[in-house]
């Protein structure tokens, strides 16, 4: 595939994710940190985010399932999730976590359950999109980024969002 075309696809898709608010400027920062000596940086950080989030969402589910809900624990988990989503630029997940913490402060169990549902939804959405961005299903099973680099091009940056 032509480098130009690949770069356009990648840029367009990333652009879309930014426009729809799934990703914010922090994601661009991650891209800036990736280079020839660290070619998988974004993929690595995003993978860590997936692992971390799934663990936290699981812990949250368990915590909210208890007879006596420990709101402090819940807040601690949400705080962590807020932090990691913020660090990779997963804006919608982060914002949902911010709202979650407010509800948690009120010690409202029902509200917390609703928030948890929301966070799970947002997480799954961004996960699907990031997976698509980083590993597109093509014959050679390379991600868009890898295809571009393999074709001799450079990963385009979205400087507007820095």
């Amino acid at each position: 595939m032509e480098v130009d075309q690949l770069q356009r696809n990648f840029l367009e898709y990333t652009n879309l994710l930014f426009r729809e608010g799934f990703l914010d400027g922090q994601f661009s920062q991650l891209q800036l940190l990736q280079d020839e000596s660290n070619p998988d940086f974004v993929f690595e950080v995003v993978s860590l985010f997936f692992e971390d989030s799934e663990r936290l969402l699981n812990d949250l589910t368990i915590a909210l399932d208890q007879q006596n809900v420990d709101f402090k624990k819940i807040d601690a988990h949400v705080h962590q999730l807020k932090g990691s989503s913020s660090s990779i630029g997963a804006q919608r997940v982060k914002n949902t976590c911010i709202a979650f913490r407010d509800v948690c402060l009120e010690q409202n169990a029902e509200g917390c359950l609703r928030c948890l549902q929301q966070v799970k939804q947002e997480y799954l959405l961004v996960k699907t999109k990031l997976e698509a961005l980083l590993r597109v299903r093509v014959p050679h099973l390379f991600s868009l980024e890898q295809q571009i680099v393999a074709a001799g091009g450079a990963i385009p940056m979205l400087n507007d969002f820095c």
Partner: protein
Amino acid sequence: MGMAAADSEFHVLAVDDSLIDRKLVERLLKTSSFQVTTVDSGSKALEFLGWHEDDRSNSNETSVSPKNHQEVEVNLVITDYCMPGMTGYDLLKKMKESSSLRNIPVVIMSSENVPSRITRCLEEGAEDFFLKPMKLSDVNKLMPHMMKTKYKEDNIIEKPEKQEKQESNKEETTQESDDVQLSLQEQLNGNNNNKRKSIDDGLPPVRTRPRYNGLTVMSN
């Protein structure tokens, strides 16, 4: 320690309980060619620094690198504020109380913009306070803090004003447009968008805290 002035290897110890943030900080620091060690807790940080329980403030101690366990010199400690067990603030406090560690510059990071928290840390001796997530532009601000220690070691007196100028000159060329304009006072008065904590030259330093070069803190 007797290091040659030409030695430009700076070693940063990064402390954060979040794996993602450790990875991020490490990468950020390495792009600026700093040597990096990351640990996941304040107690591990103290261990790495060779801290001892009875290592209290001692007027005889002038060297930055402690005598005993620390083999690698640390030029800066950057730590998250919110950590289970020992917070970044606790770590800062312990370092400042230690004769061997008190001269190592400490920078605090936090995901939350809480003015009283920032003030508290600066009062305790932190050089700077960054809002998370950290960016490349934040890393540029670390050099001046690390230089202080280097100059102290080589007995070169570095004037605070000079560093302030260097810092703000750097800021003007590398900083994003919005951030440089706003002063810390404006931030504390309620502007939540701006993240930068370093001050421009315009504001007069607060008389009670002359040691915070380039940083002015206004209490509410």
